[in-house]
């Protein structure tokens, strides 16, 4: 396989990995590392432009892949420090965080006992003082409140007056409207 073929093959693999998204960052980074070794000096920017990968993104992916391959390296005074425990712990914490993110999704895990489902009867009790309304009335109230809060407020005021003094009656049609 000549050099040009190799570069083309790596480019194809890269395009494929790029399409598969976030989980493939390390694969992309590894491919980028390999590709960078093959590309002539000064050509790297052009290759990235051709692949439509931003330079900084490529650098991030390369760094991530490099960390995966070599572990964390810190260069201080010419010393190279590879801390396997740190890499192991990072991996464990990242896995746990991913698990928590998955667990926190709307769908609870298999071993979770769901809360008992409360069947709504035709009449439901609403919060606050002892007041009852039908489920349709409640839905109508919510919709109306969303559309025109001022109108709902005035209806509520009338209903309140009705309940405490019986001055003005509020018909079901008004509430349902």
């Amino acid at each position: 396989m000549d050099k040009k073929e190799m570069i083309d093959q790596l480019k194809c693999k890269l395009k494929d990995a790029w399409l598969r998204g976030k989980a493939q960052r390390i694969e992309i980074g590894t491919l980028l590392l390999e590709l960078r070794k093959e590309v002539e000096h000064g050509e790297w920017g052009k290759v990235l432009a051709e692949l439509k990968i931003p330079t900084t993104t490529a650098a991030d992916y390369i760094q991530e892949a490099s960390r995966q391959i070599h572990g964390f390296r810190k260069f201080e005074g010419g010393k190279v420090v590879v801390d396997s425990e740190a890499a192991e712990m990072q991996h464990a914490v990242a896995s746990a965080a991913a698990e928590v993110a998955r667990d926190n999704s709307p769908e609870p895990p298999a071993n979770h006992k769901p809360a008992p489902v409360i069947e709504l009867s035709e009449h439901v009790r609403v919060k606050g003082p002892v007041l009852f309304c039908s489920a349709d009335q409640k839905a109508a109230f919510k919709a109306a409140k969303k559309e025109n809060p001022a109108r709902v407020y005035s209806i509520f005021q009338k209903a309140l007056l009705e309940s405490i003094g019986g001055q003005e009656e509020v018909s079901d049609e008004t509430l349902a409207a």
Partner: protein
Amino acid sequence: MKLLQLNHDDAAGAQLLKGTYANESHYDQVVDDDMVVLTPDGDVVAVLVEGVLSPRARRRAYKYLSTIEGMPSNRATAVYRGSSLPRIRKRDGSLSRTRQVPLSVLDMLKAKGVRGDVLGSLDATPRTPRCRLSSWSLKNPQVLRGVRQLAQEVDELFKVWVMDRYIAQLAVVWQARDWQLHGTAFTTITVNKNFRTAYHTDKGDLREGFSCLTTLGRFKGGLLVLPRYRVAFNVKPGSVLMMDAHEFHGNTQITGERITAVLYCRERINRCKS
């Protein structure tokens, strides 16, 4: 006793390392002999006294402290960066805001022989609004009795070497004598076994006081690094390090069995009723 005045001070740099492991690129000098260590401003940041604890106190303390079974589930920063995660599932299946080190990470640490627990008195917190003895002390009172000599010997050293801090600490402890630990200037001991802590600062201990750390067991490594001053301490078994634990500190890799006992005074212990 020698005096070491540090010339490096990078608080912001140390803050950036919070929750990560210490390594040899974070320090320039290792203190492993009797030394009073001063900051560039001239304040005492740590005092290391080499091989001072009696073999009897060490043996007895080791016998009891090596039975430690707890896990550092509430010490997320000391475990590793990002390990504080939600833990409790609510009835609707979502996770609560209560956080702890995830069980998978704790299992991994447990397999490595890591343990961590608290001995002695604990002050009131919003969740537990009363002062009390730690669970380990209540379940195993013989362990608390077993560290008496160790605590008293460390107390003597603290009194001699860092008297100003000792007096400040004792003044607080005397306000809550029911919670005092064996008549010393300490109320509590945090015990860690094979626990390589990531960079953290200690919370809940008295600001005006000092934390006194001693090690037991046979081990290599486990240097305690203060990245702010680029200094590391090699606390060998039987030595005592008195230090300001409100500075970021963490350990290098440990091989063998290393048990550390950190003796200190809880910050709000003087608010406890008798």
